[in-house]
């Protein structure tokens, strides 16, 4: 009963948030100067009044703003995100076409970070104030302080241009590879540089977060209790320090997971990765309202969804949450 209540409450809240985001974005995007009809007409190399009027009426751009909003919201409820103005295709289709690429990139960077970040952070914390710790923290701080696009460019310069080991852009070889296995390997090869670029930053964040969180936890009284019980140091570190120290990391990871869809614009640009971020970026400049709104909606849904996942994980990891009155 309690679980059900939680779920219903969460769903209502999520719905309200997503609705509010959609409305805000709808209005914001239309505040922008620039007329999608002119962009489209410009691209078509034909901009007489008749053509402009036709485009505007095709996409309902000639109606009052609130009417447009109402129509949009009504369509969204039936999972119809409309047509992309520029591409004249269903926005839903375009999103789902690009989604796997983005999730592959951000997901692998994310997993990479989730594995190595807390691991290295824990090592740094346990070796706090030693050479290992300092070295790790300097490296982490470096990647934390480095613009992602710059890391990407340098990696391309070194590993693609100079050494020629890895492909510098794209998700697949331009010359198609035959066979499922070969194709998979090919994608993996393309994935390495962008995923590492993105992953290094994420790792740096998690290393710092884990270390700080563990050092903070280590000062708590019950850690002293654990030592007083005569537990070996590794047990104290894992079962008592890390376990609690992971709570803020889970929170952060959940927050970040929601932002995976739009989080890689820069990397997708540098590595010509065919993902959602890049789609959103182009859509913005073409004033492709529906497409852009679609990206925002998808991303808001992801955020809200992962917020719930995080909530659940935290409830599992920390029995105090949810039972507090």
């Amino acid at each position, binding site marked *: 009963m309690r679980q059900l209540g939680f779920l219903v409450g969460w769903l209502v809240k999520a719905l309200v948030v997503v609705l509010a985001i959609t409305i805000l974005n709808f209005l914001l995007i239309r505040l*922008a*100067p*620039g*007329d*999608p009809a*002119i*962009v489209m*007409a*410009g*691209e*078509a*190399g*034909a*901009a*007489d*009044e*008749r*053509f*402009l009027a036709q485009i505007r009426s*095709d996409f309902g751009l000639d109606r009052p703003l609130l009417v447009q909003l109402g129509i949009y919201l009504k369509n969204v409820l039936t999972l119809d995100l409309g047509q*992309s103005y*520029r*591409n*004249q*295709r269903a926005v839903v289709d*375009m999103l789902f*076409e*690009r989604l796997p*690429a983005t999730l592959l990139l951000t997901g692998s960077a994310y997993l990479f970070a989730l594995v190595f970040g807390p691991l290295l952070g824990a090592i740094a914390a346990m070796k706090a104030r030693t050479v290992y710790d300092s070295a790790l923290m300097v490296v982490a701080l470096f990647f934390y302080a480095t613009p992602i696009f710059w890391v990407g460019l340098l990696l391309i310069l070194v590993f*693609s*241009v100079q050494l020629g080991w890895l492909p*510098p*852009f*794209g*998700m*697949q*070889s*331009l*010359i*198609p590879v035959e066979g499922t296995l070969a194709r998979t390997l090919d994608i993996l090869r393309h994935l390495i540089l962008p995923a590492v670029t993105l992953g290094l930053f994420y790792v740096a964040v998690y290393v710092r977060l884990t270390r700080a969180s563990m050092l903070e936890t280590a000062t708590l009284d019950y850690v002293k209790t654990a030592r007083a019980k005569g537990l070996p140091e590794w047990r104290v570190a894992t079962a008592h320090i890390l376990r609690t120290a992971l709570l803020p990391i889970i929170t952060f990871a959940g927050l970040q997971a929601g932002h995976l869809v739009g989080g890689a614009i820069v990397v997708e*640009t*540098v590595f*010509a990765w*065919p*993902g959602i971020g*890049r*789609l959103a970026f*182009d859509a*913005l*400049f*073409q*004033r492709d309202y529906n497409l852009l709104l679609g990206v925002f909606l998808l991303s808001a849904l992801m955020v809200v969804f992962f917020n719930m996942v995080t909530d659940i994980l935290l409830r599992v990891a920390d029995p105090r949450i949810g039972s507090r009155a």
Partner: protein
Amino acid sequence: MRPQRTINRWATGLAAAAVALAVSGAAAQAEPQRGGTLNSTLWPEPPGIVIGINLNAPTLLPSTKIFEGLLTYDFQLNPQPMLAESWEVSEDGLTYTFNLRDDVTWHDGEPFTSQDVVYTLTEFIPEVHARSRPTFARAKVEAPDDHTVVLTLEEPYGPLIRSFDAIGAPIVPEHVYAGSDIRENPVNRSPIGTGPFKFSEWKSGEYIHLVRNDDYYLDGRPYLDEIYYRFIPDSASRALALETGQVQLATQNDIELVDLGRLEAMPHLEVTTKGWEWGAPISWLEMNHRREPFGDVRFRKAVMYALDHAFIRDNIFFGYAKVPTGPIHSSSPFYTDDVVTYEHDPDKARALLDEMGLTPDGDGVRAEIGLLGLPYGELWDRLSQYIKQALGEVGVEVTLEASDVAGWGSRIANWDVDMSTTYLTTLSDPALGVARSYITDNQKKGVLFTNTAGYSNPEVDRLFAEAASEPNHEKRLEMYHEVQKIIADEVALAWLAELQWPTVHDAKLKNVVRNGLGPNDNFAEAYFEQ
């Protein structure tokens, strides 16, 4: 005549090119060979690949391999046969008769007939093809038999004979489109044409894949097995792909001009600037005559004197440009260089500004103006920065205004701007591609590609109007020369550069640029040397 113009990378024009061009080397080449995959860059990803429904530059490259016109055109823009084996224009210039090939089938196996042509010219184009709509509105189209099409005009119209290429009039299958909502027809995502290549797959964000049309009507052609148009958003990546041989073809703006020197030096690559004769693009600095001080011709002249056109050509366009003298492209038969020219002379510029009473203030600033640069990437940013710097030297302080394409278009169309940079295809007949930027009638607020600068001179209006309806070529020449003199003297626009678009291709790839359509040819003849 409706004004037509593009802010995009390319548009068609319909006048004969006067530039003397070397004869295509096709005849001198060895025997072409079958086989091979061509990888070409394509950027940005096109919104669709049916010409007419979309006319964006990236639509045209793959689409011209799928769809064909009745005719095609050589470097001198002389008509050549394609779907029409032969054609005839009556003495009075009012009747055009086309004899169609009888061995052509659509990609779905249906036979190609004159009904397809009639449908295309009377239904498809008027409905969707914004650019050709006015041209074919002049003609009555009939099909006396399955392989003959007759167009009848009410008065002569010179440019018509150059309107039948795959871009201006792509022939589409009647049996697929008739009775449907053309724009919503699902076939638009996997189009059916008559060309040497068939649509195979479009992988969003990655590539468009075309495969050989084994039933193509020309024996043994096409030579290539398949073509991939790959979307590579980053120009450095595109250059790298050419270098490493991962792609064999790139054109227009695909490659940053700065990279061309390096690529040209590579033994496995060739670079040519031929094949874009129709576009005849000119870049200019547009000043809003409605605002001060741009209404004063002395200010506009001062701007021309302040700019070092040679520097722009060499350092911004890296030599892939020519210095323009006026509104008409130097490749046009109507071009004259007998006009006022503006050598780089900052002192003259300052003198003109002094004369206007724009004297420097304490900081040496005579005037403050904004510049809305074309948001097409780094090259155009640099151009804006150069203009800012050059005008700054004569005391005109320029504030750069950033914008995305949408904002840029809106502001220019609505005359809400001081100065802006742009480039436009001037097309091959001044009546089509030039007049629109200068005649008073074409000041249409809210519509881009019109006389947005606000230039107005009744004499110029008169000359353009008379030249358009003048049947005598010599008389037209005279009038256009006169127009160029006036416009250049009044600096209606501050022309910056005639662009020279390069096509970079693998040296083994032959017959890439073999006529006036350049990379927008159907590639039936293109092949890889083994």
